[in-house]
């Protein structure tokens, strides 16, 4: 199993597309946040919670790491290496677990790195300008949630990749569902049921992205409920991906 894990990690490390997307997931929020800190805050100003501001980048990082998950599975099919992977490791369950663990490790490390690269330069810049930032009680939970959201979205990407077997289909589903379709579908449902809180049933917008929110309004799911709901949603895709991966001819 260790060999298969090392191999999966090596595969991710040795393709340009995955390296570029991982770097984007880490550096893009860091650059934008650093620039924001440079241009937005003046001497002596009192700012918001730094951590809750960084939390706003979690969906971007998470979705980009989801794309890495997609590439982790679809590149195998598009390049034909899936046959060699399964010849070298006939147990498809073992291959699936190795891919899951690999993408989890990559996304957790990337998300942690993103937080670090956002917060450290920001602290440095703002402390030299005497900008005071508040800390709120949910800061630690937000930090934790950024990592969890990234990890779960990357696993969703991997599963979508195994279901679609092609990057365009899987990436489209990963990006269009949470950013466009989910809002439309649940907006329509809220009209149909005359309930403005239907969005709490939206798996990604209403629960996944909600994890990094500093506050939860009444009518919304609690943090724990959101986490369980969103994890359950991801588990369905993991199961579907594994079932199709196990049954399909390579």
């Amino acid at each position, binding site marked *: 199993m260790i060999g298969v894990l090392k*191999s999966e990690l090596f595969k991710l490390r040795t393709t340009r597309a995955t390296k570029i997307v991982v770097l984007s997931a880490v550096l893009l929020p860091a650059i934008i946040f650093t620039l924001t800190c440079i241009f937005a805050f003046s001497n002596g100003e009192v700012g918001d919670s730094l951590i809750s501001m960084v939390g706003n980048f979690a969906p971007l990082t998470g979705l980009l790491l989801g794309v890495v998950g997609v590439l982790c599975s679809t590149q195998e099919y598009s*390049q034909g290496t899936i046959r060699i*992977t399964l010849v*070298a490791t006939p147990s498809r369950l073992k291959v699936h677990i190795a891919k899951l663990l690999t993408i989890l490790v990559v996304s957790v490390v990337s998300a942690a790195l993103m937080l670090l690269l956002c917060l450290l330069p920001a602290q440095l810049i703002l402390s030299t300008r005497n900008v005071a930032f508040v800390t709120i009680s949910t800061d630690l939970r937000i930090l934790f949630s950024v990592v969890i959201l990234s990890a779960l979205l990357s696993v969703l990407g991997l599963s979508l990749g195994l279901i679609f077997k092609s990057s365009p289909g899987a990436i489209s589903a990963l990006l269009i569902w949470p950013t466009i379709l989910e809002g439309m579908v649940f907006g329509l449902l809220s009209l149909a049921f005359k309930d403005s809180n239907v969005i709490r049933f939206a798996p990604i917008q209403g629960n996944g992205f909600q994890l990094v929110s500093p506050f939860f309004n009444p009518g919304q799911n609690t943090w724990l409920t959101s986490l369980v709901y969103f994890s359950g949603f991801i588990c369905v895709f993991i199961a579907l991906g594994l079932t199709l991966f196990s*049954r399909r001819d*390579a």
Partner: protein
Amino acid sequence: MIVVENLTKSYGSKKAVDDLSFSVIPGRITGFLGPNGSGKSTTMRCMLGLDKPDAGITTFDGRKYADIESPLAHVGSLLDAGDAHKGRTARNHLRWIAMTNGISASRVDAVLQMVGMEDTARTKVGKFSLGMRQRLGLAVALLGDPKVVILDEPANGLDPEGIRWTREVMRHLADEGRSVLVSSHQLVELSLVADDLVVIGQGKLISSGPIAQFMTQHAKTWVQVVSPQFDALAALVTAQGGTVELTKDGGDFHAISAITVGEIAAANNIVLHELSPQTGSLEQAFLDATDASVEYRGQTTTNVWEAPKP
């Protein structure tokens, strides 16, 4: 030793492989032949667990492929030379495969040297010609120093030197006691290297056994004769049940042995300039054996190839 028993695989209503059974003996090269779409590649994929057969089983030294621990050390395979990420270097391609089975990096370098790719080890696969990719595919097959080697069209895209090298590699592997199963459309090549043949058509077994047995069963034989008294000899041979086909230098006698023709000539004082038994090529024998099971036939008639007249 590879044993394939009653392998059956369907795609929808089409049976790609139909109750196929054969074995591949250690120390021998077994050629796997069949027309396009006959089920060769499907059979190989089913053998390696890539496609799930509807029925039947394949064992490698008594074990199913899925049950072999470190399978690359037992079975090496080359199914498609294109099965490599174009953005990875040759060495990195081999390294990730090696990692899965705990094969050392030094073995990676050794097989790259074996296939003559040590100078291109750090070149990306996307820059390789088809021949280079075939060599890389062979390197993958040999990575685990396997006891069984399965190669699907290994000489595809190789230059003459590469083809001869592939032939020598296969012979070397067989001489070391390994079982070698190789599918190829290059029948001349295969006739030079194979010891046994497995011939399939429309997923069914047509013939299995030593190449000489296949030739005896399926290759045409005739007697080539050159004689100044050919017409007289032809009349006598026809009377004995033989058939005659005229050629530029003389004629060919069918359905009669060279011994009988010689005896007829001697008994009738007929001068012979040439009397030689002939056997058809492996290609002709293969075409004759699989004629009834060819699914995809090209057209060469002029009405198809001629451009429509305005």
